[in-house]
């Protein structure tokens, strides 16, 4: 008798459909595709290594030797000039000084300034550099420090230090990371099906099938408690979304409004257009109000932070919760609740409907009638008790059970707000419900 271990999610169908409903979707690249990918990343990696070698040899090594190996001596300045060379965006300049110095009884006379020799834009500051050096003559016996290469005394510089030059090495590093990472990924997944790729690294799925991934929660440490919870939807993005909708809708409607208004002003009113456009204008006004409301919430109500002391969570667990609410608000009430929602998605024909239903709400904290001052966030701690009979979080293709910490604020003279912070509840760790 043959035995197969499961893990394959099958979507039941009432009828046979042609296999690909959502367009021509590749589930895995062919051999040539993978070869192309490997070649692409190899080129990136090679370019990065080559460029890095160039930066190391021509820049980093000379700089390091200048600052660590070169010996110091004194020199006198015999002459000065500004060297020029053409650049992409104009002429580039470098200050150069003819200096004379002694090494082991031998006199050297060379033109030098920095190592490696670097030309850059801005003639004036090069001139200012030259002006800071005085040419040696009978009236002036000024000596200046310089550093020479003991292995090659003719190589000398009048300035030391690293400056910003070593940052050039970051550029080839980007190529190396992209190329090397992509090549490793391509090689590791060579010959694997999409299902095999999806199964790789899903150890928590094998331990807890159909439990959502909680890495988004555990990868953000808190400042007061262990974990800072991410918000479900950033208020900034919500505001952006409403703004885009408002601009898009009113942008289109305004064209027709302008035509209608013009027609009235010219004494030849377009009544059909005027009546037709009216409901669209009303919707546009509604969107403006919605945007203003969202703006007030986003700007008036400052960031809401929620942190918890333990994760993952299980039924019956007890941990601490920390709340911080910023802004300048007169608060009627603020409440923190643990909420469970079921979500079901149904597709039929051209319709897709997703329905959410709140099935549990446990109030964890409430405070009423207080002020929050700008620069002094309101902070509170409370206990987060997961009900012992709680259903765990669930994620399947069309059905979900989601748990969230919800902060509801009732603000005097301001729109109410509600901010959600998803959490993941796993089945009880001992395998049974408490």
């Amino acid at each position, binding site marked *: 008798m043959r035995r197969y271990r499961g893990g394959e999610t099958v979507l*039941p169908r*009432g*009828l046979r459909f042609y296999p*690909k409903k959502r367009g*021509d979707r590749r589930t895995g690249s062919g051999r040539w595709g993978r070869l192309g990918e490997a070649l692409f990343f190899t080129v990136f990696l090679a370019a990065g290594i080559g460029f890095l070698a160039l930066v190391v040899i021509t820049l980093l090594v000379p700089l390091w030797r200048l600052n660590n190996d070169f010996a110091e001596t004194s020199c006198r300045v015999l002459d000065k000039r500004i060297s020029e060379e053409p650049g992409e965006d104009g002429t580039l300049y470098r200050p150069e000084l003819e200096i004379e110095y002694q090494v082991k009884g031998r006199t050297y006379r060379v033109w030098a300034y920095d190592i490696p020799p670097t030309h850059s834009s801005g003639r004036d500051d090069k001139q200012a550099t030259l002006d800071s050096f005085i040419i040696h003559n009978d009236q002036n016996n000024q000596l200046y420090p310089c550093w020479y290469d003991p292995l090659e005394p003719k190589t000398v510089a009048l300035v030391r230090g690293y400056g910003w030059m070593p940052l050039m090495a970051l550029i080839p590093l980007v190529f190396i990371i992209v190329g090397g990472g992509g090549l490793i990924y391509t090689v590791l997944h060579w010959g694997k099906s999409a299902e095999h790729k999806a199964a790789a690294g899903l150890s928590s799925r094998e331990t807890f099938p159909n439990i959502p991934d909680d890495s988004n929660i555990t990868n953000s440490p808190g400042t007061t408690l262990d974990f800072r919870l991410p918000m479900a939807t950033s208020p900034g993005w919500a505001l952006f979304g409403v703004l885009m909708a408002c601009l898009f809708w009113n942008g289109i409607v305004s064209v027709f409004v302008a035509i209608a208004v013009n027609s009235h002003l010219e004494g030849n009113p377009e009544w059909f257009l005027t009546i037709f456009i009216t409901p669209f204008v009303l919707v546009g006004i509604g969107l403006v109000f919605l945007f203003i409301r969202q703006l007030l919430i986003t700007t008036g109500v400052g960031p809401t932070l929620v942190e918890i002391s333990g994760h993952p969570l299980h039924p019956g667990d007890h941990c601490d919760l920390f709340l911080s609410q910023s802004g300048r608000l007169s608060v009627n009430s603020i409440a923190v609740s643990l909420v469970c929602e079921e979500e079901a998605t149904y*597709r*039929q*024909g*051209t*319709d897709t409907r997703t329905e959410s239903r709140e099935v549990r709400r446990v109030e964890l904290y409430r405070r009423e009638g207080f002020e929050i001052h700008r620069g002094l966030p309101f902070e509170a701690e409370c206990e987060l008790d997961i009900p012992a009979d709680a259903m765990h979080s669930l994620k399947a293709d069309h059905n979900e059970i989601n748990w969230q910490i919800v902060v509801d604020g009732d603000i005097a003279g301001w729109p109410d707000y509600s901010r959600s912070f998803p959490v993941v509840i796993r089945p009880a760790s001992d395998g049974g419900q408490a």
Partner: protein
Amino acid sequence: MTPDTAPSENPFSTRRIRPGAVTFLFPEGQSCRGLIERLRRNGWQGEIVGPHGSGKSSLLACFVPELHRAGHETVRVELHDGQRRLPLKLRKLGRLSPSTVMVVDGYEQLGPWGRFRLKFFCRRRRLGLVITSHVPIDFPKLFDTVSNAETAQLLVDRLLEGYERLIDERDVLQAYARQEGNLREMLFDLYDVYESRRRRQSSPA
């Protein structure tokens, strides 16, 4: 497919109301076989037209097996949510028998080029083409799916067979009115009503 042998606690759950789970209710004097005959007279071209939730997909669920029984193969395509292109490569369909009928659910989603390509493909290979749409296109009419309160009641009666009658005629009428004749949404509405009453009944007093 979850077999029908597994009982649902709610007769309006999706596995019981999805197309194919419930037999399509034809008006008196009409049947699937009659549709096949009409399709044949129209040169194997036809459109099924009706508003959202009026049963077009449910009709296809009984119509397609009837086509198979009549000796025709089918290639079924379902277009969702503004999908403007066919989700398959026509040239990759290979050799199709001349009695094949292409069935496209949600045809009006296709863009002009997609429609042209599909019609040209079917004409060139002499294939039949049956489409569903919310509005009439330019195909011979095969069937208009319309919903009315009587059909809604018959449908609910059929779904409630073998279940406790926690839904009465007034519930059906109210749900039908609330959803403005959309039978699918009416059934979802009744799901909530039934679920609420079932729980109240089973919870301890």
